[in-house]
């Protein structure tokens, strides 16, 4: 668990990549982020995190096709690695485990 070193924002980006399966590239992630959280974010912030996560081994990527409105340029599609799946699962289960231990009284 302690080896995973996943920040809060990184975790969200990982989740978004998972949500957008097979269509996860930067612009789509920006839109999805806005849709899901209601907050807007600059594309450079997403770039930074995507490339960093790839370096850390949470993501792998390949160049996809050139979509509309891209001036004929291909997009880089990102996919979760098994390592990332494991990390996300561990985080989720840790959270769940902790949540279940909270006495009912303290969140009433």
């Amino acid at each position, binding site marked *: 668990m302690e080896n995973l070193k996943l920040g809060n924002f990184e975790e969200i980006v990982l989740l978004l990549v998972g949500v957008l399966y097979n269509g996860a590239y930067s*612009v789509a992630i920006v839109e999805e982020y806005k849709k899901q959280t209601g907050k807007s974010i600059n594309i450079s912030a997403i*770039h930074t995190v995507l490339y960093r996560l790839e370096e850390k081994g949470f993501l792998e990527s390949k*160049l996809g096709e050139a*979509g509309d409105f891209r001036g004929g*340029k*291909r997009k880089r599609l990102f996919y979760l690695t098994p390592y990332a799946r494991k990390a996300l699962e561990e985080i989720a289960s840790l959270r769940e485990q902790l949540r279940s231990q909270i006495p009912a009284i303290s969140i009433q």
Partner: protein
Amino acid sequence: MSHEKHFPPPLALKFFRWYCRKDRLEELEGDLEESFYAMLHSGKAPGLAKMICWWNVIRCFRSYAFKRSATYRSTNVYSMLTNYLKVIRRNFSKQRAYALLNITGLAIGFAAFILIAIYLHFETSFENFHTKSDRIYRLTVHYTSPSGYDTHFARVDTDWINGIPEEIPEAEKLIRFQNHEPKFVRIGEEKFRQDNAFVTDKDVFEVFNFPLTKGDTKTALAEPLSIVISEAVAEKYFANEDPMGKEIFITGYWSTDETVYKVTGVMKNLASNTHLPVDMLISFRNEAERSWWAYTYVLFQEGTNMVSVQKKLEAMAIKINGDQALQGAEFVFQPLSDIHLHSNLAREIKPNGSITYVKIFLLVAILILALAVINFMNLTSAMSIARSKEIGVRKILGAESQQIVFYSLTESVLFSMAAAGLGLILAFLALPVFSELTGTENLLPPFVLVSVLIGVTVVTGLLGGFYPAFVLSSFKPVNIIKTSKAFSIGKKTGRFSIKRVLISLQFGISILLIASAMIARQQFVFLNEKNLGMEKDQVIALPGVPDTVKDKFKLFKDKLEGQPGIKGVSACLEVPSREIRDGGTVTAEGIQENVDDAPSMDIQVIDHDFIDVMGMELLAGEPLPKSLAYEPLPQLTGANNDVEEYLLSKRRAYLLNETAMHAIGWQTPEEAIGKNVDWNQGTYKLAKGPVVGVVRDFHQETLKNKVDPIIMVFEPLWLRTFLVKLETNDVASTMSVIEGAWNELFPKYPFEYQFLDELYENLYQNERQQLQLLYLLSGLAITIAFIGLFGLIAYSLKTRVKEMAIRKVMGANFTSLIRLIGKEYLLVMLAGAALAIPLSYFWVSKWLENFAYRIDISVMSYLITLAGICLLLMATVALQTIKTSGNNPADTLREE
């Protein structure tokens, strides 16, 4: 696709492509474009979308997008740097002598630069400490008359100017500094003569920054009979006692009455960068005292338009005095900060500097620095040739050109830093001598000096390293390893190769400075040794005697005449060496009878012994007759025109100088003798009297000015200087005789005298300072140049050892070797000389134009300079050749 008429801003994309790494460019640029079109799609205005796209490009300026540079890829910058430093250190110890030579040359250059910077800063910092200096103006007056009288005074003598603050709305305050004549001060039993003492207005502290350490600026000069003294004066008068409230007795200049003043303030000593040195300020007793000659300063409001003020001043003068007021008088406001470098008027408080000299020395500073940098470049590039093998190996091992350049520049910047450190030390060791030489105080804040120096150091290091760096980095490794390269400035390097141009520039700068210094020296010797038309040696002058002393001059004279060691005693108006500023028109019987057309002349008042005492030559006639004797001075009040009547009633006889004779229109001295002339200035008029003699022209003033026409007359009322001619080997005991007589007759006044020859020498104090500075600098220049040359020749011979050996084997003798090497340098030097000599001629003739009497520039000075440099050059070449060719050629050639 409805939005295709709008595109992302092309410049933004261009910028993005410039910084973005290639492997991510496609996807990232695509992202940017897509977000742009997405914004248009969602209904954003195209302009806004473009702006956001720009914003995104800027936001993407982050590490993930950056190009990976070449150096970044090379594994370890730090360890390369340590390697560089190590090799630089090893090289330094391997060629210690040359490296030290190189650093020393540059250090001397830096030291000269620092010293001149201090001098220039001092000269341009005048009046800076007055916080309102940009709003303070000095009022001056320029008097002219059709007869040729033309004098611009630094001070003003009309009283209506006191109304300026009331009449001109922009003027806030008007401050008078008057009664500038020396004060005769008594404290208890001790007597002092106090200069730099002024009577001034109480608001003086609101205009000028004269900080008080004791007392209150608001009240210090508010009361009559108050006095503020400087700390230095306080210490002189009262030693360690508290001066506040102490009494100071001052004897009047015009009468023997003593007035007692109370000390109400002590002022910090002023720095010497002011044209207005103040040691004592005295309050006015009443408004009526604010009259007659005064150095007058006006404080204006911020943003005042001086052109309109000048107009208002003229209107005001006419309003108060009527139309005649400004005839022949022009009132001029001078900005306070311009006075030191731009003003040279009559009766300045102290001699001012000159912007010309500031410019000259700025140029010299740049030249010397250029010399040192050239030297540095030459030596560094020469030294680096010996290291071409090292560079070759580095290149073969994969060093890139960029790295070699960086390595080279590191080395030269390090050298230049060492030189700067050494230069700083040298400059501060030389500073005391330099300050004395130039009268400069070091007011340069150290942090400014240091930051300027750091800048110059880095620039020099880069400049110096630039050429060798690129020479070295351009070598082809194979060639370097295969052959060993010789350093020479011979024809093979090309007629205009950088090396040759640099060396000839060096020679040129040295010749320029040395030849100019030599000619300046000749002019200076000429100034001091020219026959002045009088004998100034062994004459003491007691200038500026008060009226009460003057009254008893006859007694003083009788007491001294005939004493052993005293040849004669006389008196005059203006002490010789000082310009005469009292002019008037002279009419002459039968030739110039109309006062309005008559020529204007200076008047020198003398007694009948003057010609004798001063050793002047009479071309015709005789000195003033003894029958015009001293009589007790009349008691004149100035009322009912009694002065005018007195002047007109006395019997007169006149002497003229040659120029005056010609000005009137007489051709020969004999023609003038016996003709009646008179002298008029305004309401003052001297009675007609005969010309009794004509004197050969003598130099009353500095040789910068032409001899003016002078008329001489006897009038005891106007004598102001006593003169005593000594004829003794024991000056000290004769002086004590004179002092004894003085103290007996004038116990209230301190005995103060000056030697006339010193007064004349002081006239050229500025020139002497500048000359000495020029000496110093040209000495430094030649030192730097020859340090460089020495190193260069030594180096060049070292790389040509084999060539020399082969030449010797083939039968060349010592002289032919010297000729071989010497010829190369000689040609280069002559090229430099061809550049420098016309420049120096131009420069020096400009300077000589300052002097009405001057030497001709002689070819000899240039020949001597050239010969001297040739000799030095040949000596250097010979010395180095002996060292090289002394070896047995077999030894040199054997090892390979």
